[in-house]
């Protein structure tokens, strides 16, 4: 256990500092949320209709920002070799790295998401659901994103490649989360969408580390 808690502490500290950490992600998120009304027009009614969905898509994009460095730095400086040579399974190591990524960027973004949505004109009653969706969705983004980050190891301009690999994997959580928010806003049952979002996140947490570990081993060999 001492090994795992040490890794979690180290990875979270590194993720906090990586590429500016949570401040940059939240800043980027705020920037996208500000750009939208400028592009779509300031009519309150139109904005309010798209606010939850816009906040949700911006969240998916902001989650991409620091993903590419998740494995790359350890790969470049040799730390990934040493993390692999351990009695801790590489799958668990990868899962902890993604969990740290979520703690350092997903959780701060989940706090920013309701603020951005309400700022765009979403009803305040929607805030708790947006927060919950962003928290669960962030977990799915971190664990599916880790797959892309591990697959693009060793590639030039791996960051762009990560985004291209990962965006299709972001489609289901965006649909489920957006659907739940939309249903809640129109007074319909939102639990189905939210449950599917949770299921996708659970699948990502369970299966993502297997793919990441395989991709890391492949990159190291």
């Amino acid at each position: 256990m001492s090994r795992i808690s040490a890794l979690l502490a180290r990875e979270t500290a590194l993720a906090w500092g990586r590429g500016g950490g949570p401040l940059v992600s939240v800043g980027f998120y705020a920037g996208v949320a500000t750009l939208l009304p400028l592009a779509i027009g300031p009519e309150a009614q139109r904005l309010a209709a798209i606010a939850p969905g816009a906040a949700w898509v911006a969240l998916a994009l902001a989650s991409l920002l620091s993903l590419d460095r998740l494995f790359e730095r350890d790969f470049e400086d040799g730390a990934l070799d040493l993390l692999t040579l351990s009695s801790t399974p590489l799958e668990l190591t990868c899962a902890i790295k993604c969990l740290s990524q979520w703690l350092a960027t997903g959780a701060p973004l989940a706090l920013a998401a309701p603020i951005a949505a309400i700022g765009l004109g979403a009803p305040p009653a929607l805030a708790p659901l947006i927060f919950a969706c962003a928290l669960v969705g962030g977990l799915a983004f971190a664990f599916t994103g880790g797959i892309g980050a591990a697959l693009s190891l060793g590639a030039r301009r791996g960051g762009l490649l990560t985004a291209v690999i990962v965006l299709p994997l972001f489609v289901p959580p965006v649909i489920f989360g957006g659907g739940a928010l939309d249903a809640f806003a129109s007074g319909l049952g939102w639990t189905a969408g939210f449950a599917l979002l949770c299921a996708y996140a659970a699948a990502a947490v369970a299966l993502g580390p297997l793919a990441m570990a395989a991709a890391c081993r492949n990159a190291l060999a």
Partner: protein
Amino acid sequence: MLKLRPGRWAGVITALQLRGVAVSRGGRRLFSGLDLDLAPGEVCALTGANGAGKTSLLRTIAGLSAPDMGDIGFGGADPGDARQGGLHLLGHLDGLKAARTTREELTFWSRWGGAASDGADQAVTALALGGLLDLEVRRLSAGQRRRLALARLLAAPRPLWLLDEPLSPLDAAWRARFGAVMQAHLAGGGMILAAVHDPLPIPARSLALEAAA
């Protein structure tokens, strides 16, 4: 199976045997038919021109890549267990994060290696890292940084050391001191396989890697 002294070795490696090992890198065969036996207390210097495959061989023994042919044995131990808890790999990339302090890095890697609670302190004493603990790794000189990387070997004792150019950034005094550290490791039943260009500061047999025809 050999009974291990409790608290001495975390791993189970009691020997290293290579039989007819062939390794290639990027589709190019580096060497083939390599045999090596390393018993407890033995050290072997791995020599060869640049690109002869010294690093690739160390990585292959560590299990990071697979040999094309041949067998790598650890004295009958399960290769997976042996690699996970029985060896240290020190490459020219040291895995240290420039923005973290010496203390943070040493503490983490000691815990990661499963070191006893006083393991890191012993390594600090042996390698005179005491004055560097609060410095960021980026502020260390190349030699100091290498000492920090070597400290991992001492913090979490494991029988087999795979060292890639371990001494190159060290000055003469530290080479001699690390020679003494290696000798202590061997005296305790450890094994060392070190890729070197300069001779090791301790008597060692050598194995030259020659390119496959």
